[in-house]
């Protein structure tokens, strides 16, 4: 059966960037195909809050003209991307998925926006998300519930649910997400795409609406590891406007993609990583480990004695910090929050200062343990989350034995660890369950070692096809 959309949209970001560079495809064709796709299916998905239809066409035309006269803006010249709606774009509404910022028009770009522009990207629009990024379902009361393109009765996870769904459904070639407790990795896993949570301090948060300052990061989401590496190269690095960014040099992230994984030591924590998860998820991640072992990697069992307790620490910090940021609005405009976010913000105000400080001390404990473990392994691999996409509107999830659990706690079972420790982590698609819903694995690395994560992810994608499948929508 013929594809219902342009064949171009099935190409990876790096492919189309190459086609533009060699003048085989015009940025105008890419933008037209993307906008046509958005018009055709986003009514079913609600991935976009704002589409820059006119502006995207204008910028694409300009990119085409520049290309024709041999002027290359950068590695993303003419490539259509989209931004999560908490990333500022000068002159365009940036809502953070909220009613409260529903009319906010930034007068400056976020640093990340500027750097992507400088690399030649064309922005298609702003993507739907969980309100203020405080939640993992992307069931947005103001801009509509984002739906999973693999099955529109299922959720896309979140908070960057619009980013995950738009990339998977071929409504853009890559997207920006933000990740505090898992908000890039979760929708990447649930939508079957690649997503990187960078090391804390690797990417500027300047111009991004915060959730929890001590854990917030922003990163790329795309269909292949190479695509993510290409996007990441454009915006990673120190920013004088964000005092939390580190002065650690970036690497050549594309140069590592064909390096073998032979001899790498991959750590697993058997009592935690493969405990309390749905069987198809466990089977898929264990099969991925076997595949990497087949490429010459060594799987090493590691003990992280204090890993239990990470979910409470995560929730405590992720509750307290946003509640400080939202304190004024919560008193002046409480009715303008969705019920779930309002409740979480209220709860965050009622936790004690000692709870918060003990959670921050726990982070030191957990990070110390991981840094010690990195003397024996190069990276860790675990599931990204313990279950596949649940039905839209669910607040509980069943992981095993028919027991219902709170979605927010359950969804952070594995993503909380890198969030608390500041370590980089990459979701890579590694299978599908019996209902055709995607499964992802999470590769966790040392601080500022994103290159190794790309190396492992690319080696895995070179021998698997999961990332090539497209949802039938």
């Amino acid at each position, binding site marked *: 059966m013929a594809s219902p959309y342009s064949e171009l949209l099935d190409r990876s970001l790096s492919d189309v960037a190459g086609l533009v560079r060699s003048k085989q495809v015009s940025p105008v064709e890419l933008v037209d195909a993307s906008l046509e796709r958005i018009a055709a299916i986003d009514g079913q998905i609600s991935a976009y809050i704002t589409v820059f239809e006119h502006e995207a066409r204008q910028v694409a035309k300009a990119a085409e003209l520049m290309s024709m006269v041999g002027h290359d803006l950068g590695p993303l010249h003419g490539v259509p991307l989209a931004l999560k709606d908490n990333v500022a774009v000068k002159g365009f509404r940036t809502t953070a998925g909220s009613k409260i910022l529903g009319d906010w028009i930034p007068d400056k770009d976020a640093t990340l926006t500027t750097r992507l522009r400088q690399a030649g990207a064309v922005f298609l629009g702003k993507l739907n998300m969980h309100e203020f990024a405080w939640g993992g379902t992307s069931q947005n009361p103001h801009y509509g519930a984002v739906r999973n393109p693999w099955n529109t009765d299922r959720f896309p996870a979140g908070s960057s649910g619009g980013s995950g769904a738009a990339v998977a459904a071929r409504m853009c070639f890559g997207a920006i997400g933000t990740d505090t407790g898992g908000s890039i990795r979760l929708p990447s896993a649930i939508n079957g795409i690649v997503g990187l949570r960078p090391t804390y301090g690797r990417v500027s948060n300047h111009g991004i609406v915060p959730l929890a300052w001590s854990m917030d990061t922003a990163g790329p989401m795309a269909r292949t590891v190479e695509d993510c590496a290409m996007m990441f190269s454009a915006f990673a690095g120190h920013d004088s406007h964000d005092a939390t960014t580190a002065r650690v040099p970036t690497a050549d992230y594309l140069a590592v993609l064909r390096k073998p994984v032979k001899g790498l030591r991959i750590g697993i924590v058997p009592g935690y990583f493969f405990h309390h998860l749905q069987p198809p998820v466990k089977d898929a991640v264990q099969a991925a480990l076997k595949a990497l072992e087949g490429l010459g990697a060594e799987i090493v069992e590691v003990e992280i004695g204090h890993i239990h307790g990470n979910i409470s620490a995560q929730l405590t910090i992720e509750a307290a910090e946003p509640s400080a940021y939202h304190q004024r609005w919560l008193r002046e405009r409480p009715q303008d929050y969705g019920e779930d976010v309002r409740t979480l913000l209220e709860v965050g105000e009622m936790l004690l200062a000692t709870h918060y400080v003990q959670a921050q*001390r726990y*982070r030191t404990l957990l990070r110390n343990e991981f840094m010690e473990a990195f003397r024996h392994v190069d990276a860790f691999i675990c599931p990204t989350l313990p279950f596949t996409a649940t039905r839209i509107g669910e607040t509980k999830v069943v992981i095993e034995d028919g027991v219902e659990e709170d979605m927010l706690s359950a969804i952070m079972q594995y993503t909380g660890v890198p969030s608390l420790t500041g370590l980089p982590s990459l979701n890579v698609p590694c299978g599908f369950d019996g209902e055709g819903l995607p499964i992802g694995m999470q590769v966790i690395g040392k601080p500022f070692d994103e290159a190794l994560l790309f190396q492992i992810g690319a080696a895995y994608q070179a021998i698997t096809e999961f990332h090539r499948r497209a949802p039938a929508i």
Partner: protein
Amino acid sequence: MASDNEAYMQLRALAAAASLKISGQREAQVDGVLQSWLVDANMLSLKMSAAEFQALTPVTVFAHPPFDDEAN
């Protein structure tokens, strides 16, 4: 069985301490989340107050001011 007034005494005390107004209709919803999180937060506090962790300092956000030539 505790009356609503007794059931939400802790919630009301904490909300009052934070100068936060929570309407009667929302108390059950907020209290449900709060009570479950407090149990886990208290367990973590108990763990972290153990003598073996006395020397651990909390993670904080360290600001690195720009060099003079970067401050634009």
